[in-house]
């Protein structure tokens, strides 16, 4: 590690907590949200520095991009003023302050004492061939710890079902307060977005990438299309949307349960078809995750107080 690397790391590692502090201390919520997006981009750099390209991809697409878009959208509903607040007493603030300082210092001390570089890299490498996936992270996600991923998708679908409190209001081709340019942009970018998503998905078997990264890119493109009023936002009242929503988890469960019929374990892919099955799961998950991420986006609030937003029920 050169001195320049060290300086870069120290600056980056200092900027992140400072940004967190500014996010939480800033007077108005709009600045908090903008700084939050900035933190997402900065931390993507940190992931790259820590040799975690998958996480850098996801952080840039989801942490900064999608979550940022969700937050900005939330601001347009709530307003950049305080929104709903819960008053906090001075005693609570002092007490919490003391506790979290202890946690932070204790944690930092504990972590830097973990100098022994132990891990499971060797075990993963040794069994990579048995897992029928060439890229270690994908092997962990879909084979060694595929069960975690299955439950994680259940979390995602649960949150999607709960987050659909409003039916999105905007209509394709309706009045556009902005300009035709976003629509043109959306049309130009859509093929590129699909291409990039497909590329990320295809790459996932052998290099950084995979279902979630691909889905995040697709969802980003979808949000752009919704904002540009090219695409009608998905609603739960459509059976096609619901089918797409459940397809990924349903297929994952089917593949997980199939080995049980032959007396094998849950999620023990038969080795003859493991590769194909894993790819099929990735494709199905990409579809479902992108729909879920798009559904997290509630769309624009209707202008004026009187406008009613129907709830998205099905």
């Amino acid at each position, binding site marked *: 590690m050169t001195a320049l690397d060290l300086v870069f790391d120290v600056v980056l590692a200092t900027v992140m907590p400072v940004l967190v502090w500014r996010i939480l201390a800033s007077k108005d919520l709009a600045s908090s949200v903008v700084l939050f997006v900035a933190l997402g981009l900065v931390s993507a750099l940190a992931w790259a520095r820590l040799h975690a390209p998958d996480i850098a991809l996801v952080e840039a697409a989801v942490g900064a991009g999608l979550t940022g878009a969700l937050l900005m959208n939330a601001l347009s509903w709530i307003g950049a003023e305080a929104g709903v607040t819960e008053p906090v007493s001075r005693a609570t603030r002092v007490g919490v302050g003391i506790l979290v300082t202890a946690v932070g210092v204790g944690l930092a001390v504990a972590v830097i004492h973990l100098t022994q570089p132990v891990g499971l890299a060797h075990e993963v490498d040794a069994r990579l061939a048995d897992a029928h996936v060439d890229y270690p992270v994908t092997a962990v996600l879909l084979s060694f710890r595929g069960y975690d991923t299955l439950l994680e998708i259940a979390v995602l679908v649960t949150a999607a079902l709960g987050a659909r409190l409003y039916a999105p209001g905007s209509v394709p081709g309706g009045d556009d*307060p*902005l*300009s035709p*340019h*976003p629509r*043109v*942009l959306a049309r*130009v*970018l859509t093929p*590129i977005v699909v291409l990039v998503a497909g590329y990320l998905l295809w790459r996932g078997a052998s290099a950084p990438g995979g279902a979630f990264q691909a889905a995040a890119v697709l969802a980003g493109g979808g949000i752009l299309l919704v904002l540009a009023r090219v695409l009608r936002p998905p609603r739960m009242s459509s059976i096609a949307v619901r089918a797409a929503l459940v397809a990924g988890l349903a297929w994952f469960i089917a593949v997980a349960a199939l080995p049980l019929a032959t007396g094998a374990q849950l999620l023990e892919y038969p080795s003859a078809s493991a590769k194909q099955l894993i790819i099929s799961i990735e494709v199905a998950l990409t579809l479902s995750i992108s729909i879920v991420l798009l559904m997290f986006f509630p769309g624009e609030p209707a202008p004026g107080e009187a406008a009613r937003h129907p709830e998205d029920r099905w």
Partner: protein
Amino acid sequence: MTVIDVLATALWVVGAVFFVAGTVGLLRFPDVYTRLHALTKPDNVGLGFIVSGLAIQSSELAVALKVIAVWVLLLVVNAVSCQVIARATWNRGIRPWSRR
């Protein structure tokens, strides 16, 4: 250090200068429109220099094409987002700053 490395580093430095200038503009300019200008134009040029540096340094053509694609996409997105923000600002009735 080869000649290409030196050239690439020089391009990065030039690019960084544009970014710094843009950031100073963002902080110092008086209104949304001028700040937008400071934010997008120097970034486009600065990234162009940085991408050129990366492209000439890359070992494969595919990598070089990818970084150039990144730049082209950023040009399109920057142009549109700048325009959208400016128009939204205008529609809110905020008029450009002028030295009276």
